[in-house]
C-alpha cells in the first residue's frame, strides 16, 4: 500500500477519534444537548470506518469480488432499490417480525408456565436448553419440510431462535425480586398472578429487555440464514447467497447494509422502549437510589 494511503488512513482515524472525544466531553459537560448530538458520534465513527475501508480496499488492491469498496456498494444500493425493497419486505416484514413476536411471547409464556410449576421447571429447562442448542442451520431444512418454502418456514426458524434467550432471561428475571419485596406481597396474601403482575414481571423487566434486544439481532440473522435452504426467488438471504455465487459481491454488501440498518433500527426501537419501561432500574436512571 503506498505511503499516502497510509497517511490518509491515520488522518481519518485520528480525526474521527478527536472529534468523538471532544463531542462526548461536550455532551457530558452539558454544553451540547444529548438528543441529536448523540447520533452524530456513531455516525462519525461509522464514516471513519467507511473511509478506512475505502482507502484499504483501493490502496491494497483488494479484489472487489472479495471485498468491494464502500463507494461501489453505495452505487449498487442506489441502483437496486426495487430489489432491495422487495427483499426487505419478504424477509423483515414477513419473516422476522411475526417470528420475533411469536418467539418472544412463547419464551415469555413458557418461562411463566415453567416458573409456576417446579415440576415443569425441572422437566422443561434441561430439555429446553437441549432444544435451544439445535443449530438453526439444522432446523432450517426441517422447517422448510414442515412449513413450505415461503416465509412461514423462515418465521418458524426465527421463532425457534428467539425462544431460548427469552426463556433463560425471563426465568432469571422472575427470580430478581428481592426477598423483602416478595415478603410484602405475602403480607397482602397476594395470589400468584397478582405477585407476578405487580412485582415479579416488573422486576424481571430489565432481563426481559435484555432478551428482546439480543433477539432483535438474532431474529434477522435467523431469517436470512434460513433463506439459504430453499426459498422463493426473493428475500435478503436468497439475494445474498445467490449474489455470492454470481460474484455480485457489491449487491451482497448492499443487502448486508440494508440488514444492518434495519437491524440497528429494530434494536434502537427496543432500546428506546426499554428506557421508557424500565426507567426505574439503576442502569437506566444512572443509579440514583
Amino acid at each position, binding site marked *: 500500500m503506498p505511503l499516502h494511503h497510509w497517511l490518509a488512513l491515520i488522518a481519518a482515524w485520528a480525526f474521527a*477519534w478527536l472529534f*468523538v472525544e471532544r463531542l*462526548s*466531553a461536550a*455532551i*457530558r459537560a452539558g454544553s451540547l444537548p444529548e438528543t441529536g448530538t*448523540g447520533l452524530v*458520534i456513531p455516525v462519525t*465513527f461509522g464514516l471513519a470506518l467507511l473511509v478506512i475501508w475505502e482507502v484499504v480496499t483501493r490502496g491494497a488492491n483488494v479484489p472487489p469480488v*472479495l*471485498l468491494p469498496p464502500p463507494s461501489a456498494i453505495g452505487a449498487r444500493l442506489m441502483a437496486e432499490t426495487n430489489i432491495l425493497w422487495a427483499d426487505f419486505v419478504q424477509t423483515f416484514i414477513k419473516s422476522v417480525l411475526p417470528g420475533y413476536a411469536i418467539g418472544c411471547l412463547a419464551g415469555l409464556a413458557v418461562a411463566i408456565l415453567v416458573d409456576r410449576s417446579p*415440576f*415443569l421447571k*425441572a*422437566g422443561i429447562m*434441561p*430439555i429446553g*436448553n*437441549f*432444544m*435451544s*442448542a*439445535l*443449530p*438453526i*442451520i*439444522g432446523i432450517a*431444512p426441517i422447517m422448510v*419440510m414442515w412449513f413450505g418454502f415461503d416465509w412461514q418456514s423462515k418465521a418458524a426458524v426465527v421463532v425457534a431462535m428467539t425462544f*431460548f*434467550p427469552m426463556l*433463560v*432471561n425471563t426465568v432469571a428475571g422472575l427470580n430478581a425480586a428481592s426477598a423483602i419485596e416478595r415478603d410484602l406481597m405475602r403480607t397482602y396474601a397476594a395470589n400468584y398472578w397478582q405477585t407476578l403482575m405487580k412485582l415479579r414481571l416488573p422486576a424481571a423487566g*430489565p*432481563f426481559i429487555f*435484555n432478551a428482546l*434486544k*439480543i433477539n432483535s*439481532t438474532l431474529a*434477522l*440473522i435467523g431469517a*436470512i*440464514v434460513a433463506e*439459504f435452504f430453499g426459498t422463493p426467488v426473493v428475500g435478503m438471504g436468497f439475494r*445474498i*447467497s445467490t449474489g*455470492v455465487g454470481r460474484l455480485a459481491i457489491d449487491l*451482497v454488501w448492499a443487502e*448486508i447494509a440494508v*440488514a*444492518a440498518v434495519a*437491524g*440497528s433500527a429494530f*434494536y*434502537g426501537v427496543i432500546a428506546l422502549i426499554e428506557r421508557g419501561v424500565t426507567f426505574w432500574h*439503576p*442502569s437506566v436512571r444512572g*443509579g*440514583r*437510589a
Partner: protein
Amino acid sequence: MTRILPVLTILLALLLFWYAMAVHMNAPWQNTLNNRAGLENVPFMDFAQQAWAQDKPVLPAPHQVVSEIWNATIALDITSRRSLAYHGWITLSATLLGFAFGTMLGIVLAVAIIHNDASDRSLMPWIIASQTIPILAVAPMVVVGLGAVGLTGLVPKALISMYLSFFPVVVGMVKGLRSPEAIQLDLLRTYDASPVQVFWKLRWPAAMPFLFASMKVGIAISLIGAVVAELSNASGGGLGVRLLTGSYNGQTIQIWAALFIAAGLAAVLVAIVGGAEKWVNGRMGARA
C-alpha cells in the same frame, strides 16, 4: 429422583408426540411406496412400523436417531472419520476456543463502554450493527480471506464463534456493570477509590448474575457459530459438515443424529456454565 422424574415425564410425553408425528409426516411417502408395491389396506400398526423404518424419512423415528447416534459414536473407532464423536470433538474445540475469545472480547468491550463516554456512544451502535450482518454470508468470505493469509482449520471457525458469542456478553455486561445502586457507588466515591478498584470491588461482583445469564446464551450461540462456520468449509470435518453432507444426500437420519449430538453438547456446556454460576453464587454468599 425428584430431579429425574420430571425430566423423564416430559421426555416421555415428547417421545410419544414424536412417534405420532413421525407416522403422520412419513405417511404420504409410505403410501406412495405401498401403492407402488401393490399393498392395500395395511393395518395401522404395520403401517406405523413401516413409517418408522424408512430409509430417508421426512421425520425419523426416535429409535432410528438413537441407533444412528449409537452406531456413529460408540460402535465406531473414535478416530474414524465416520465417528460423530470425532466430528463432535472438532466442533467442540472450535466452540470452546471461540467462546473463550468471545467472552473475553465481550467483557473488554463492556468495560470500555462503561468507562468511556466516547466509546459508549461510538462503539455500541456498531456492535449492534455488526450482529445484523448475516454471519453465514460473511463466514465463507472470512474462511476464504483467512485461508488466503494461511489461517485454516480451527481458528477461522473459532473467530466466527467469537463473532456471535461476544454480543450477548457485551449487552449483558454493560447492563450488569451498570447495575450497582447509586449509594453503593457513592460509598466508593467517598473512599476516592480508583476506577480499577470500583471495577473489581463493586461493578464486577454486581455484574455476576448478568454475566452468567449472558454466558449461557453465549455458549449455545458459540456452538451455532462453529457449526455455521463448518458449513462454509467442508474440509476438516465437524458436526456442521455432517449436517451439510447429510442434507446433500437426503440422509435425514444422519442430519438428526448430528443435530442431537450438537444439541447435547450445547446442553452439557450450558449446564457446566450453570454449575459454575451456582458455585460462584455460593462463594458470594447468596441466600440459599
